[in-house]
Structures are given as structure tokens and as C-alpha cells.
């Protein structure tokens, strides 16, 4: 299927590829829930002393993937609601040098089942998701194809180039481990176009490893074409009906290597810290649970009138920065200014500095440039004027304006017919809407509501692959 829609929001304050490794903090605040995971089953009690790598809790809904202590210390369950706090940390400031391991992993299909188990226990399995549902994939399942992507296009989230920086060997070895888990399935490696330096380096490293069944996919760098569901759709991987496609981001492949080459859990994360009010937008290597307030301290241009967001501009979630830490699924921290100055006759200005999806500003005559963004709504809520921008921008090929209309009049069946379920929750429709309608939020809610109240209509029912024992 041909990619359609999409749009690159181009804000000032994107992270550079520099990576700063943060020293371990005084304490860790590890959130118990994130976008797709809820670690509701605790494995530790208040006051327990844990060691680095120990399981703190598991998510029973997601094949019991564990939440791993990213540092040893004393557990407190009461200090912060919804978090496990670890104090009196005993992280070595200089971790032991990693043992030498061969540059390439041998093809080891014989231990696939064991290795999957190992990945699960060491917390690396949580990166493997079902490309259709975005939920953790079944560790015993058999995918029809696997997508590995080193591209993240949402503005301000961690850049694939930073995640893989100085880790190309590990990345390739991780993919070798991954291939050993599979039977014959192809790994679709999604990369920026071939001229990209990182892509070239990866290709060089891969060359000569014939048993790696790779298909390189140069990606059109337009948001949100890096979305896992869209990737699978664009590659036609769903076409044969109801097939399970795995998606693993670069960070996950590196976690695979950590687990299977070194037997280690992944306790750190490379995240971005970005936004127009961040002094030096770049990437940070932090422990899972590193308090956000600690990260922001001294790194912002201003203390007040900011919004701190877990994730990127378009789909991130606002967080109480003072009261949380870096979660397992955190890919970046975005800090935006909240507007405080009212501009006179703003709507009349020629707008050479305003970058718009439309052609209604002088900026339409300029090429691409970066724009200063804040949390301003930049307009007022109005009824839909049917401008069609949301339809034009939607990468899923559905009509958000029409679905909005049907939801407004409570016609859920019609919203279902218009395939609200195809929405990949990219947020672009809300971004471009000139009536400032929160279409994205409505779509996301309607998807859940439709699934709960109406279920799948018969003709669209996805026939689940039988859960056969396929492991070699």
C-alpha cells in the first residue's frame, strides 16, 4: 500500500545527537504504569533491599514482563503514588568493564525457546510488540514477519541515530540473536535513506553475514511513517489476513544483545531532552526511574510557565515533573513554554515565521524552516468548517472530520463503518485542525469505545493464528 498523508512538524529545539551520561541520582522513582504496560503484580515489599536487575513487579496482562530494578537499594512503596521508589542506591559509579564477546553471534536456533525465556526474564521482551495492537507480543508466538526500525520521526523523541550511536556492532549482533529466534521469517530493517551515515555503517557491518535474512527498507522520512502499524501496512505485511507482525525498535534490539550476549538486563535508557526552552537539547543516558525534576534542574531557560511532556510534541503525555521519574517506555522528555504574552492582531500578521500545513501564511513562500512552538492553541475552538485538512493529513486514509461528526451525534456504528480502528493515533489531525477540535483524542477514545461496545464486525474479524508450538 502506498503511504499517504503525513506531515513533518518542524519545531525549534530538536535534540542534537550528543549523548550525556547522567550520574546515578540519589533515588529512583520508577513509574508502575506506562502507555502500554501496567506492572500491577508487585514482587517486592516495602522496605525490601533489592539488587540491580531484580524483578520489582510484573505486568500480568502482558505475559508477565518484569519491571527491573535499575539499581540496587531499599524499596519504598509508599513514598510516591504509582511508583516504586528505590533509595540508598548502591549503583557502582564505574560499572565493571563488559566482558569480551565475539563480534557476531552464531546462528543458534536450537536454543530459541530458552533464549525467549531469557529475554523475558531480563526485561528485554517488553520491546517486542504486536505491530497491530502495539501491545507486548506473545513470547511463544510465531510472527509472519518482523520489523526492526531505527527511525523515530515524532518531533523531540529520542533519535534513532542517538540510540544506535557507537552501538552498531551491538545492533547487528542483536539482530543476529533475533534471527535465531525465528524460523524463516524476514526481518524488515527500516532505516533512513541509504545515503544516511548510520544506515551505511549498518550495511557495512551486516555485509558478509549471509544467514541474516534482512530486507532493508529505506523510509520516506515523513511523520508518522515510522509508526509500526503503518510500516506493516505499507510493507503489505497484514495483507494475507490476520497475521502477526512483530515490531522491535533499535533500543529493543540492543536490549536483546545485552541479554543474550552478556546475560544482562537493560537498566538504562537513551532518551531525548528537547524543546525550545531547553538550554541544550540533546540525548541523555539515564537509569530507568531517574527523577525528572533532577534531570530538568539547571537545564531549562525558565522555571515557570512550562509544560513537561513524557514523549514527543504530538502524542506525548503531560506529566507532573516534580513527582515522577523516567518510565520504561519513556523515549524523551519534551519541555514547551506555555504562552503568557498576548499578541496584538496576531491573526492579521503576514506570518513569515509561522509554519503551517495550510498555505495561509507568508511562510508558504519559504522552504522548510524550524518554527518556535509553545503549548498555545493558536486559535479558538469552533465547529468544523469542513476545510478537509484533517483528511489530507491523515496517514490512515480515514476521514477524521466525518467520524467527529458521527461521534458528536452518538452514531458509534457509523464511526465504526468509517474504520476508526485504522487510526494509528499520530495526532496530526488535531495538529492541523483550524477549528481546534481535539480529533486525535476523540479518535483514540472512540477506538476503545467501539472495541468495547461493538466488537469487531464480522466481515472484519481478524482470524487469530492458531497458537501452535512452533519453537524449534
Amino acid at each position, binding site marked *: 500500500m502506498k503511504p499517504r498523508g503525513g506531515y513533518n*512538524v518542524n*519545531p525549534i529545539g530538536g535534540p542534537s545527537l550528543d549523548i550525556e551520561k547522567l550520574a546515578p541520582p540519589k533515588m529512583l522513582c520508577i513509574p508502575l504504569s506506562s502507555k502500554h504496560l501496567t506492572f500491577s503484580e508487585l514482587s517486592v515489599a516495602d522496605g525490601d533491599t533489592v539488587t540491580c536487575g531484580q524483578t520489582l513487579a510484573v505486568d500480568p496482562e502482558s505475559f508477565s514482563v518484569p519491571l527491573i530494578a535499575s539499581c540496587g537499594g531499599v524499596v519504598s512503596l509508599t513514598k510516591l503514588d504509582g511508583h516504586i521508589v528505590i533509595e540508598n542506591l548502591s549503583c557502582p559509579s564505574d560499572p565493571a568493564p563488559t566482558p569480551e564477546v565475539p563480534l557476531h553471534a552464531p546462528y543458534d536456533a536450537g536454543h530459541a525457546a530458552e533464549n525467549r525465556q531469557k529475554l523475558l526474564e531480563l526485561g528485554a521482551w517488553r520491546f517486542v510488540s504486536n505491530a497491530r495492537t502495539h501491545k507486548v507480543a506473545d513470547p511463544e508466538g510465531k510472527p509472519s514477519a518482523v520489523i526492526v526500525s531505527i527511525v523515530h520521526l515524532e518531533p523531540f523523541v529520542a533519535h534513532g541515530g542517538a540510540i544506535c550511536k557507537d552501538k552498531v556492532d551491538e545492533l547487528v549482533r542483536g539482530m543476529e540473536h533475533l534471527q535465531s529466534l525465528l524460523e524463516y521469517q524476514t526481518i524488515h530493517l527500516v532505516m533512513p535513506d541509504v545515503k544516511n551515515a548510520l544506515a551505511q555503517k549498518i550495511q557495512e557491518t551486516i555485509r558478509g553475514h549471509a544467514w541474516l535474512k534482512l530486507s532493508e527498507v529505506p523510509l520516506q522520512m515523513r511523520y508518522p511513517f515510522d509508526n509500526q502499524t503503518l510500516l506493516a*501496512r505499507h510493507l503489505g505485511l*497484514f495483507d494475507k*489476513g490476520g497475521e502477526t507482525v512483530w515490531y522491535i525498535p533499535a533500543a529493543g534490539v540492543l536490549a536483546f544483545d545485552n541479554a543474550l550476549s552478556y546475560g544482562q538486563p537493560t537498566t538504562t535508557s537513551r532518551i531525548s531532552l528537547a524543546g525550545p526552552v531547553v538550554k541544550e537539547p540533546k540525548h541523555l543516558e539515564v537509569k530507568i526511574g531517574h527523577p525528572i525534576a533532577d534531570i530538568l534542574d539547571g537545564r531549562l531557560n525558565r522555571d515557570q510557565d512550562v*509544560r513537561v511532556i513524557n514523549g514527543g*510534541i*504530538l*502524542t*506525548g503525555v503531560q506529566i507532573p515533573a516534580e513527582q515522577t521519574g523516567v518510565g520504561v517506555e519513556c523515549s524523551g522528555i*519534551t519541555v*514547551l513554554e506555555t*504562552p*503568557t504574552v*498576548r*499578541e*496584538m492582531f*496576531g*491573526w492579521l500578521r503576514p*506570518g513569515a515565521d*509561522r509554519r*503551517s500545513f*495550510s*498555505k*495561509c*501564511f507568508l511562510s508558504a513562500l519559504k522552504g522548510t524552516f524550524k518554527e518556535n*512552538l*509553545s*503549548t*498555545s*492553541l*493558536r*486559535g*479558538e475552538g*469552533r*465547529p*468544523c*468548517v*469542513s*476545510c*478537509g*485538512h484533517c483528511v489530507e493529513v491523515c496517514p490512515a486514509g480515514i476521514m477524521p*472530520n*466525518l467520524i467527529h461528526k458521527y461521534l458528536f451525534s452518538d452514531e458509534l456504528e457509523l464511526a465504526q*463503518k*468509517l*474504520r476508526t480502528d*485504522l487510526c494509528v493515533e499520530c*495526532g*496530526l489531525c*488535531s*495538529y*492541523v*485542525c*483550524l*477549528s*481546534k477540535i481535539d480529533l*486525535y*483524542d476523540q479518535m483514540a477514545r472512540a477506538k476503545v469505545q467501539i472495541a468495547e461496545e461493538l466488537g469487531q464486525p464480522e*466481515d472484519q474479524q481478524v482470524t487469530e493464528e492458531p497458537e501452535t508450538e512452533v519453537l524449534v
Partner: protein
Amino acid sequence: MKFLANLLDKARPKFEDGGAFRPMKPLFDAIDAFMFNPLSQAKLAPHARDPLDVKRYMSMVIIALLPATFAAFYFYGWRMLPVIMVSYMAGGAVEVLFAVIRKEEINEGFLVTGLLFPLILPPGLPLWMVAVGVIFGVLVGKEIFGGTGRNLFNPALVGRCFLLLSYGGPMGGAWIEPGGGLFGRLFEYKSVAVDAVSQATPLAQAAAETPVITPLGDLFFGNVLGCAGETSALALILGGVLLLLFRVASWRTIGSTLIAFGLMTALLVGGDINTVLFHYLAGGLLLGTFFMATDPVSGPSTNGGKFVYGALIGVATALIRLKTPLVEGMMFAILTGNMFAPIIDEVFIALHVRRLQNEK
């Protein structure tokens, strides 16, 4: 500037809950937001938004209407100023009234209607008729449907239709002889049509017993009799090009209206290229195509639907002009199009659903 901001800040509490002027809050908000960008924030993700808003969007239409407005001043004198003011004030009053009753925001849509309306009226029309027409148009064409965004018909056309049916005489005769020269009638205030009876618009002349075909050059520049903003093809084409460049108007609607109209006219007149050109330039075709058929609210919202809708309007205009006693058909054609828009949409939505059915 600071002074103004302070003034608004001071006045604001009077319009909030418990204030003396609470009912007028929509009006205050509109003025306030007109002067200064509101500080409202994106509450939900996405945390930042595109700079385009409805105000800006509507002002682009107004910018595109400026050449035609200027042409109206040039050809028919500065009486256009009170005409436009009356239209804005009367239409605005209805808009404010309904915003107050509904406790909703004032909608920017009437900014376009208020300017568009005088441009589709004979320039010599009495001011009170302008007021009556715009009030009827906004009230019946828009407010009873629930305001901008929910209206079925183009409000300006509803107003004009009403005037035509109620005051056919002045609507068909209040023409003003167009000015010429460097300044045209820019400095004249011409209220009553001179020789109104003996004159007719180019379309009427062409349809008369002994047809007179106005030279194409005159039609192109606009120094002919006609509705204030409709005569100058040059100004309208300029505006239409702007609308297309701003991407505010749909090229699908415009393209299909113009092509269908041309083909149908050619068919009816036996392929005479001059007559076809004459019909393109005369009357309200260009203004209607660029500024009314493209109204996204009263037209279909599906892309395919826009082609059909445009074609319907083009064909209907040609048929009404050439096959009925009426000399001008644009207005009825667009109103008919408006009426069919939801049905056209229905068909294309069904196709859209069919196409999506097998998407995984």
C-alpha cells in the same frame, strides 16, 4: 497597545459570571480575541498546534475578495462603503444575537458573508433592502441550522434569493452605469440608477429579442451593468487565483464547475467559442464559482463529491441561462447544489466505506 490591553482586562470581570454584562460575553470575547491572541492552550495532545485558525482562514477569503471589492468601488462609486457597512452591521447583529442566545462564541463566518453579500447585489439597491436581505440570509440561511459549520445553504445566496423573490423590481433594475478613467467613480456617491429602465445587463441583452453581445473586453474589465462585485472578471480571476494559492478553495470544485459549465454551454450554443467565452465572463459565474460554490460548509466534504457537485452547478447554470426564461442561473444552480451536497456526500462516503472495508 498596552493601554488597550489594560482596558480590556479592566472590562473583563463585568462580562464574566456575576458581572453586569454577562449576556454580552460572546461580543466581548470576540472583540477581545480580535484584538489580542487568546492565551488558550492545547489541553490534550498534540501539545502544540498549527498556526491556522478560523479567523485567519476566513480573512484569506476576504483578502481574495478585495480585488472585486475594489472594482465595485471603482465602477459604482463609494456608496459601496455604506452598503458594505450596513451588510456587516445588520448581519453582525444577528450573529451576535444568536451567539448571546446560544451562549456560544461569535463565529467568524459572517465576516465573509457580510462582504460577499453586497457584492452580489445590484449596486443601486436601497440600503434598507441590503439590511433586510442580509438579516434574512444569516437568520434563515445559517442560524436556524445551528450557525456556521452546520448550515445547509450559503447564507449570502439565501439572502439574495429572498430579495429577488420579494423585490424583483429593484433587484433587476437598480444598476448603476459603470465609471471609467483613472479614478472611475471612486469619488462619486451614486445612489439611484440613471436610465435604469432603458438599460439591461449583458446577459439580459444577450437573451433579448434582438440580442446585443457586449464586447468581451468590457466584460473582462467589468465596465458593464451588473451586480457590484460580479462584473469584473479580471478582479475575480485574481481573487480566485489567490484562493487557489492559499488552498482555501478546492481546485476540485472550481475546476469541475468551470469545465462542466464550458462544455454544457458549448453544447447548447453549438460550439461557438465566442459565445462560450461571453458566458464565462458575464454575470455571476466567476464570483459564484470562486467564492460560493467553494464554501466548504454548504458543499460536500468528500473529494470525489466536490467534482460531482461542481459539475452539477456548472451544468445547471448553463441550462438555466440558455434554456429557461431566467437570464442568470448561478444563484439557483448553487442553491440546488447545496441541496444535493449531502446526497452527493452520502454516495461518496459509501464508496469510501467500501474502499476501506478490506483495509487491514
